[in-house]
Each structure stands twice: as structure tokens, then as C-alpha cells.
């Protein structure tokens, strides 16, 4: 008996299992592997299509010309108008998202004894689940019509900013919670008012985590087309003026994909590819920033 037990240890456990259990194990492995494959295959199919169709029509013109320069005589135009629009609207969104998002997160974590904290947190959760198209409609009602801004880059940026807020709040809250309470107490014990402790001790300590959260929020909204439809509207001409109608990359892709022109559809593929690559780069930057901590 003793020798058999020691043999079992030597040859490893798998050989001691009954055939039935070994079969179960194998079956489970196959199922798990299949599940993984089921998730990965569509992703690679999408990426393959995107790269093949996107790259073939990607050229310098894509970045230097606007959609308005498409002619039937050969020039396919480009997406410069959409790229500029995306950058401008993301800048507006960033201002809104960072100020309100980080401010809210500070309120929720640093002033958690305040009686409004539970309701603010609830509103944040509601905003997280809000469909992007609804956010677009809200901005349409409030800003485009209500304040009379009309369709504009500003309205588009505001809708993207509104979507960013809960993402930034969530991320910032998590890192603020990681800042040790004793650092806050050390600051207060020096006779510093609470807001100075937050600005000069808590926020710098959480900085890299907050930056990561902000970049991921930008990546998250830069692919949104729906909220731009009712707000920025789209514009095939290049403009730097955010009070004008503007296009964004996702919106230009969406519109071009339905154009009755092969050149425009090809541009849509390239636009989608550039958008995916930009988001990929942003995510990598965010990971790098997080690791540096």
C-alpha cells in the first residue's frame, strides 16, 4: 500500500483519476476553449475586415482632404473634416468631463458624510446606464434648441462630455479611495484646510490613476456616433469653428457607409480603421500611465 501511494505521487495525479473523471475533465476543457474561441473569432473577423478594407484605401489624402472634396472625376476626398471635428469635440468633452467628473468624485469620496452624497451617487449610476442617443436628445433639447446654439461642435462636445462624466467619476472615485486616510489626517494635522489637503496632497497622490481614468473615458466616447446626430449634425466641409455644424469620425463613418459611391464607402472603412487604431493607442497609453504608478 505504501509503495502504491508513493508511486501515485510520483506519476502525478492525472494518471490516478478514473477514466470517467478524465473524460469529464477533457470535456470541460473543450467547452471552455470553445467559449473562448467564440469570443475571439468575431473580434478577429472584424479586425481582419477592417484592416483589409481599411488599409487598401488609406492614403495621405485621407488626412489632408475633407469629405466635401469628393468628386466624381477621381478625387475621393478625405476625412480631415471629421478628424478635426472629433478632436475639437473631444476637447470640449474633456473640459466638461474632467471638471465635473473629478469634482463629483471628490465630493463623493472626500465629503462622504454629506447628506447629498447618496442621491448624487444614484444619479451617477443612472447616467452610466443612459443610452448615448438619449444623451444626444437631451443636449438637443437643452442646448441646440433651448439655448439656441443650433447644431454645433459645442453641442456635440457637450453630449460627449455628459457621457464621459460617469466614467471619470467611477475611475476617480476608485483611486481616491486608495489614497490612505492617514495622509489626509497628516495634512489636516498641519493646520491645513480640507480643500488644500485635497488639492495638494490627495489629488497629486492619485494623479496617475486619475489620468488613466480620463484617457479611458476619452477612448470610450470617441467611438460614439449616436449622440452627435442630434447635436453636431455632421458637416462635410472642414471647419475649426465649434459654433458651426461639425462632423466626427464615427459620424462620418456612419454617413459615408450609406453613400451611393464606392469611394465614399472605402473612406468609411479607412475612417473606421483610423478610429479603432486611435482608441487602441489611447488605451495603451492609459495602461502605460497606470503601470508607471
Amino acid at each position: 500500500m505504501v509503495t502504491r501511494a508513493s508511486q501515485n505521487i510520483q506519476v502525478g495525479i492525472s494518471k490516478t483519476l478514473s477514466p470517467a473523471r478524465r473524460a469529464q475533465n477533457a470535456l470541460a476543457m473543450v467547452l471552455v476553449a470553445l467559449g473562448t474561441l467564440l469570443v475571439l473569432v468575431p473580434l478577429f473577423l472584424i479586425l481582419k475586415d477592417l484592416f483589409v478594407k481599411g488599409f487598401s484605401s488609406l492614403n495621405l489624402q485621407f488626412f489632408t482632404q475633407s469629405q466635401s472634396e469628393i468628386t466624381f472625376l477621381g478625387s475621393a476626398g478625405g476625412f480631415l473634416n471629421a478628424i478635426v471635428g472629433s478632436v475639437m469635440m473631444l476637447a470640449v468633452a474633456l473640459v466638461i468631463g474632467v471638471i465635473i467628473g473629478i469634482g463629483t468624485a471628490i465630493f463623493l469620496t472626500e465629503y462622504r458624510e454629506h447628506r447629498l452624497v447618496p442621491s448624487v451617487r444614484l444619479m451617477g449610476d443612472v447616467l452610466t446606464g443612459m443610452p448615448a442617443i438619449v444623451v444626444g436628445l437631451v443636449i438637443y433639447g437643452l442646448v441646440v434648441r433651448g439655448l439656441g446654439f443650433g447644431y454645433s461642435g459645442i453641442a456635440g462636445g457637450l453630449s460627449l462630455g455628459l457621457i464621459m462624466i460617469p466614467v471619470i467619476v467611477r475611475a476617480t472615485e476608485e483611486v481616491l479611495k486608495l489614497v490612505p486616510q492617514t495622509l489626509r489626517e497628516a495634512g489636516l494635522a498641519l493646520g491645513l484646510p480640507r480643500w488644500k489637503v485635497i488639492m495638494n496632497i490627495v489629488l497629486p497622490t492619485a494623479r496617475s490613476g486619475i489620468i488613466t481614468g480620463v484617457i479611458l473615458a476619452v477612448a470610450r466616447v470617441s467611438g460614439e456616433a449616436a449622440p452627435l446626430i442630434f447635436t453636431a449634425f455632421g458637416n462635410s466641409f472642414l471647419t475649426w469653428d465649434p459654433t458651426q455644424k461639425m462632423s466626427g469620425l464615427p459620424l462620418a463613418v456612419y454617413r459615408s457607409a450609406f453613400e451611393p459611391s464606392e469611394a465614399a464607402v472605402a473612406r468609411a472603412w479607412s475612417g473606421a480603421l483610423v478610429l479603432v487604431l486611435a482608441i487602441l493607442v489611447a488605451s495603451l497609453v492609459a495602461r502605460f500611465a497606470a503601470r508607471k504608478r
Partner: protein
Amino acid sequence: MNTDRPIRLQTENVGVFYGSKDAVRNVNVSFRSNTVNALIGPSGCGKTTFLRAINRMHELTPNTRVTGKIMLDGQDVYGSDVDPVDVRRRIGMVFQKPNPFPTMSIYDNVVAGLRLAGEKSKVKLDETVERSLRGAALWDEVKDRLKAVGSSLSGGQQQRLCIARALAVEPEILLMDEPTSALDPQSTQRIEDLMESLKQQTTIIIVTHNMQQASRVSDTTSFFLIGDLVEHGATEAVFQTPKDERTEAYITGRFG
């Protein structure tokens, strides 16, 4: 007990409540200027709770309430016209675990209190850094690397850095919450030695679990038990001829 020195801090019927539970009851005690005062007692006896009431540190914890009066130079620190920020500026604190600000250099850590309160003069800041680090017996070890981050120091050095940071704002009272419990014996000794010189410039109230430490460094000792101040007096008297049998039981090691 140096009865010739003026009373710096005096408490009247101080109680601290967490919700409806009273953690400290009816503490009446006074601490004289330029002395070291030890608060001892078993875990959970309320000594740290009492210490944190002195500089209004409890105000960050919801549902915590302090009753009674804590008179600093004759003025109640809980008075309705008193700003807690001002109280904490006059009553400094050193914590159990060294907690230098991780994003700041040694220099910036020391001057954090002054600089964030608006002091801009480079000369004044330089002076303060040297004076405070010398006061905390750390100057010679770090004078060549003031720009290094505070967390690059050893645990004992970090704690002395925290003492220097507290000294920089020239507090009238320095609260120390088990400042050596996270340190090795050698670092502990350095900080104990330091207290003797620190009391020249400030009044120290120290919470400690270590009764030898209390008897070595303090002028007065207060013994707490389950929220009550059982005995307070000159350290020698408390340790050699305790009046209360519970004190005697504790210091002779029969419980706690």
C-alpha cells in the same frame, strides 16, 4: 511634577461618543507647558480616542461627538467661534505609522504646512527646513539629499521626517499616537531621546503601549481603562506608588 510650569492644556469632563456608544467618559486632566505626558492603558481603553479629540481629528469620522471642554491656554478648542483648522495648526500630530507625503521630496514634506499656508519666502522656508530637521535629529542624515522623495528613507527616518514636518509649523502642543510602535528598537531609542529635547520647544502628549517607554520619557502618566481615566499623576508616582489597584495591576503586568 514640574508644578512651577504653567498649565497649557486642561480638559473638563471630556467625553467622546461613536454614535451612542461612549468611548471616553469624564476625563479631567491638565498638562503643563514643556512636559512630556504619557497616556497608557490596554488596547481599546480610549487613549487614542482621547488624543484625537484634542486636535478635533474626530470631525472627519461621521457620527462622532465630543462633549465637555478642552481648554488650550484658557480657550475651549471646541468653542463655537474657534476654527478647527486653527486648532490643528497650534496642536500638531505624529501618527502611528510614518506617513510622509509620497509625492513630495524631503524638503517639501517639511515645509508642506508653511508653504500651503501661503509662506513663499525661500529664506524662511530654507531656515525652517534646517531648524525642523535638526529638531527632529534628522538633518545630518538627509542634508545632502533634501530633494529625494520622503518615502526613500528608512521607517525610523520617515517617522523623524514626520516629526520635523509637525515641528515646522511650531505647534504649541505635539500629539504623538504610538509614534514608535512601527519602528525597530534603535529607531525607537532615537525618537525617545528626541522627546527630551523637543519638550524645550513644545508640550508633548504621547500615547504608548509600552510602559517602559512611558516611564523613560514622560513627566506625567495618565492611565486609561475602558474609557475612564483611572489615574493621572507624576510618572514616578504612578509607576512606584499607584493609588488605584487597577493601575497597579496593569503596570505590574497582571493584565493588558
